[in-house]
């Protein structure tokens, strides 16, 4: 990792990522992600899309995992760890597929605001990338918004750029 590298050296432009307002439904968000999957050139996939409010303030992110969680039939969701459905094998898949048609299509009409992860962690463009790495690792993030003067949203740092930077330094 070269010395003095900062967040803005790795940052992706905001408009390299799909945007949705919070009132979009999960099914609309899924369609947008699928369009981006096909047409994205600068990145192999959007692992998450950005959710904004009416005044173009970043509210949060919606990852593929968030979407799948949002589509998961309620019956499958444990209310505590102790209640988690741990049985493996074909029954689990059968339960999900039976419930999927009944419930998941309805769940896909929920607004993304109910599923997204609120944006709580940020870095500044001139922060060292080690700070971004620390925040991504310890908060289990796949991307980290970059704010200028703690206000204006200017870009993103993804897990993959941090990984590439640090792994290159380790292997060097």
């Amino acid at each position: 990792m070269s010395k003095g590298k900062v967040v803005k050296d790795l940052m992706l432009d905001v408009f390299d990522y799909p945007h949705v307002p919070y009132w979009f439904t999960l099914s609309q968000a899924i369609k947008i992600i699928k369009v981006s999957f096909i047409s994205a050139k600068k990145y192999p996939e959007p692992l998450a899309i950005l959710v904004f409010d009416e005044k173009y303030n970043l509210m949060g992110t919606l990852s593929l995992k968030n979407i799948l969680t949002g589509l998961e039939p309620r019956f499958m969701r444990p209310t505590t760890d102790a209640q988690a459905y741990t049985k493996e094998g074909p029954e689990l898949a059968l339960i999900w597929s039976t419930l999927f048609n009944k419930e998941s299509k309805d769940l896909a009409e929920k607004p993304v605001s109910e599923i997204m992860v609120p944006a709580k962690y940020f870095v500044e463009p001139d922060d060292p990338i080690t700070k971004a790495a620390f925040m991504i690792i310890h908060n289990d993030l796949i991307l980290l918004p970059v704010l200028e003067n703690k206000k204006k949203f200017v870009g993103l740092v993804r897990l993959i750029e941090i990984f590439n930077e640090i792994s290159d330094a380790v292997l060097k």
Partner: protein
Amino acid sequence: MTLLDRQNHRKLYVQLYDIMKKKIEDKEWSLGFRIPIEQELCNVFEVSRVTVRSAISVLVRQGYLIRQQGRGTFVSKKVISDKLTMFTTFGELMLEEGIDFSTDMLAQTIMMPVDDLADKLNVSGDKHIIYIKRLRKVDNKPILIQETYIPFHICPPLLEEDVRKNSLFELLERKHGIHLTRVRNYFDVKYLNADEGMLLDLSENSPALVLTQHFFSGETQIMYMRSIKRPDSFVFLIEFEKTDR
């Protein structure tokens, strides 16, 4: 059945467009008819899905077809008054001009095109769109909900402009040098949903006027605007003058 001519210099999607348009005009595909799904059209005409999508997109833009999420694509029941083309100065057609509105900003943000918005704006589905939603009032009475969609690449600074006080058209033309050369207007009637009714201070399912406008600069569509109006607040006057040409 008419097939595509691969020796013809015209693009395949244009040939397919012509065939589908003729089916509609000849009533082979009647009003409300659900057209075959994309894969079926691919098989019948032996073309790629991209070709089928391009042909359908043009027909949707021109009002011949309408897409309904989860249901399919249908021959539009709307009558398109293509023959009723008129030319006038823009000021006379802009609802923003000449009326002393006050404005509540409901949204000025970015979104991706959903449903048939990409077709309406003639952009690809991965393009960012500036979305502006305003509630117009006269004497503090809500009379008009105006939703505007502009491809982000057409005018990025518009995202930060004050469109509550300033006319969108003046900003585009005078400040950003984007000249509007053509507008296509569609008048329609709809029944308000709960949100629209609340904003216009009317009950849900009340009838309202809808003006849909496609704005062009040269051949490029730069804006799509949908205005929902209280029916008791507007009278449209369209006057035609016969010339001796």
